[in-house]
């Protein structure tokens, strides 16, 4: 018991050991004027007081039971009251007979502690102590004739003893009461803090010096699909940071731990499914979190804003390119017209010269290529205006295939349709859809070695809750490299040695204009493009 008590005392008075408490008790003895004579006086009246104690204690508990405020802390019924009576008797006898050493002080401390623990209101604790004091003095006064010292001396000594006892008891009571209040306040503020952190639509992470996650707010689930439990204790860089950003983030964590806060840095975070979200981070050092220096990092998701910004930049860039291309195309067409005019006139001159005519035809071929190139670049730079009508997708891709006949000549290339859908009609721009399929099929033809097998599959899907058709175009070529997968829809990206690198960008433009999506499939063999086009039925 004593040990537990000491343990508690240390917890309560972190600045005060049992020895310190005793030192203070001795000091207080001087303060109230306690002397050895008082100790002798008290011991001298011990038996007198003890004789009257049972009545006094019975009266004390009878009074106690008249007050709801005191009764509510007595939960063990009459059995408990009997125990309490015994310990009160023991305490008072102890006070009259004990050595006033450090153990004595500790026992008094324990009494105060116990009263605070059971939750007795301090006003009632004081009133109870006052009643006890009066009771004991009354007892002594009534039996004054049996005392070895004059009654005033006896009462003075008794008062000094009880003053000192009560001071310790109240001190312990206060300490425990304050401690309990502090704990409760801590808990309340922790609850408030938790509520704030956990309700915030931002990611709060605490990372230790080894970059392990000490704490992670529940928003992580919404943001990444990871559960908090599976992340705590794991390496922050490995589990949440996108590979490309690891070096930068590690550097910033290092700097933050060194005391230079991170402000407004943008880094992607890795989701469970491997995709990324962009966060803007603020971080600062916590000198002591769970016993060691850590970094508190708060990340706000700004992926949508960033995407919008990128789209805007792309649109601006394309508008710039568009203007340039328009000018270039205009001038080039004038020049092409002059080449055309002159070569046709030359044709009249050399009509009988076979070799010259052959050269002229080759010139014509080069000129046609240049013209097609200009058409392609221009069609990408200009905003798409759809001329919508009911359009059968299968007839569109068949027409595209037909247009590629010259590319297929002399090759073993087959278009395999696996269309289980009866109705593949959408309301769209037929010319543009033919262009879309032509670009896709042309890519496959260029990428695949013979025998080329291009498959087209269709199925009914919904897109943004509207009826749509999904068309998958796949080939038996080498497929796309990871790099190519990243950039395949970027303008001017190409794996071919010839071409503008606009084919897939235009394909995406056309699909976008139709309110659909185009994405790469996940096939292991060959390339697969999956196009979703809303039917847009009138």
């Amino acid at each position, binding site marked *: 018991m004593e040990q537990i008590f000491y343990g508690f005392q240390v917890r309560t008075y972190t600045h005060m050991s049992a020895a310190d408490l005793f030192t203070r008790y001795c000091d207080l003895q001087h303060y109230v004027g306690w002397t050895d004579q008082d100790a002798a006086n008290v011991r001298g009246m011990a038996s007198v007081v003890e004789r009257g104690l049972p009545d006094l204690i019975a009266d004390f508990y009878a009074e106690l039971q008249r007050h709801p405020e005191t009764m509510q802390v007595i939960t063990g019924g009459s059995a408990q009251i009997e125990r309490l009576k015994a310990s009160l008797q023991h305490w008072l006898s102890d006070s009259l007979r004990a050595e006033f050493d450090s153990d004595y002080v500790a026992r008094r401390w324990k009494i105060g502690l116990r009263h605070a623990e059971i939750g007795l209101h301090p006003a009632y604790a004081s009133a109870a102590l006052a009643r006890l004091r009066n009771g004991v003095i009354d007892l002594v006064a009534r039996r004054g004739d049996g005392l070895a010292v004059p009654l005033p001396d006896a009462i003075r000594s008794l008062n000094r003893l009880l003053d000192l006892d009560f001071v310790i008891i109240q001190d312990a009571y206060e300490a425990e009461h304050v401690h309990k209040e502090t704990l409760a306040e801590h808990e309340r503020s922790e609850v408030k803090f938790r509520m704030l952190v956990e309700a915030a639509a931002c990611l709060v992470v605490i990372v230790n010096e080894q970059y392990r996650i000490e704490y992670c707010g529940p928003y992580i689930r919404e943001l990444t699909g990871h559960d908090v439990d599976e992340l705590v204790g794991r390496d922050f860089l490995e589990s949440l940071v996108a590979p490309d950003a690891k070096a930068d983030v590690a550097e910033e964590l290092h700097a933050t731990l060194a005391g230079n806060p991170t402000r407004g840095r943008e880094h992607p975070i890795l989701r469970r499914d491997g995709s990324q979200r962009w966060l803007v981070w603020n971080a600062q050092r916590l000198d002591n979190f769970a016993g060691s220096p850590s970094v508190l990092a708060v990340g706000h998701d700004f992926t949508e804003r960033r995407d919008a910004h990128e789209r805007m930049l792309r649109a601006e860039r394309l508008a710039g390119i568009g203007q340039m291309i328009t000018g270039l*195309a205009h001038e080039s067409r004038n020049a092409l017209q002059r080449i055309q005019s002159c070569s046709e006139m030359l044709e009249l001159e050399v009509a009988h010269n076979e070799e010259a005519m052959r050269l002229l035809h080759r010139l014509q071929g080069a000129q046609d290529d240049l013209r097609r190139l200009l058409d392609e670049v221009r069609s990408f730079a200009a905003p798409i205006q759809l001329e919508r009508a009911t359009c059968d997708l299968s007839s569109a891709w068949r027409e595209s295939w037909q247009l590629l006949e010259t590319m297929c000549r002399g090759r073993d290339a087959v278009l395999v349709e696996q269309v289980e859908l009866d109705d593949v009609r959408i309301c769209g721009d037929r010319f543009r859809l033919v262009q879309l399929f032509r670009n896709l099929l042309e890519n496959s033809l260029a990428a695949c070695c013979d025998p080329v097998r291009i498959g087209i599959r269709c199925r009914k899907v919904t897109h943004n809750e509207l009826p749509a058709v999904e068309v998958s175009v796949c080939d038996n070529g080498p497929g796309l490299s990871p790099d190519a997968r990243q950039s395949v829809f970027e303008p001017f990206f190409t794996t071919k040695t010839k071409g503008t690198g606009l084919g897939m960008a235009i394909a995406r433009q056309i699909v976008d204009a139709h309110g659909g999506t185009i994405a790469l499939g996940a096939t292991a063999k060959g390339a697969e493009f999956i196009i979703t086009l809303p039917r847009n039925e009138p």
Partner: protein
Amino acid sequence: MKCGMRIAVAEDEPDVRDYFRRMLPQLGHDVVGVAADGCELVELCRKQLPDLVITDLRMPGMDGDQAMRVIWKERPTPCIFISAYSKPMPAENGGDGIGCVCLTKPVSRDELEKAIKQLTSSHADGDQR
């Protein structure tokens, strides 16, 4: 060849002017004059009253479109616009049933021949493309 047309041409590029001057007779038509800009074209049409006009759309000074508005007010004349834009101006021209075709540069002899045939065979069909 059966119905050779009297054609007025406007084009600011000398190479292309030469081309029309040489190629149109090859297709069986007469070139009644070659203008280098819109003003010259208007004058030319007033003098020669051609059956058909072939004009570049963009020329210094008065451009092809403006010139044709003037010409159409005086005399409805079918017209082939030649433009360096891939999407030429919509034919808001003549209106009153005057044939009009827009071609995008570079224009080949075949395309030219086709356009002329189209205009001669359908005088009253209004706008054509």
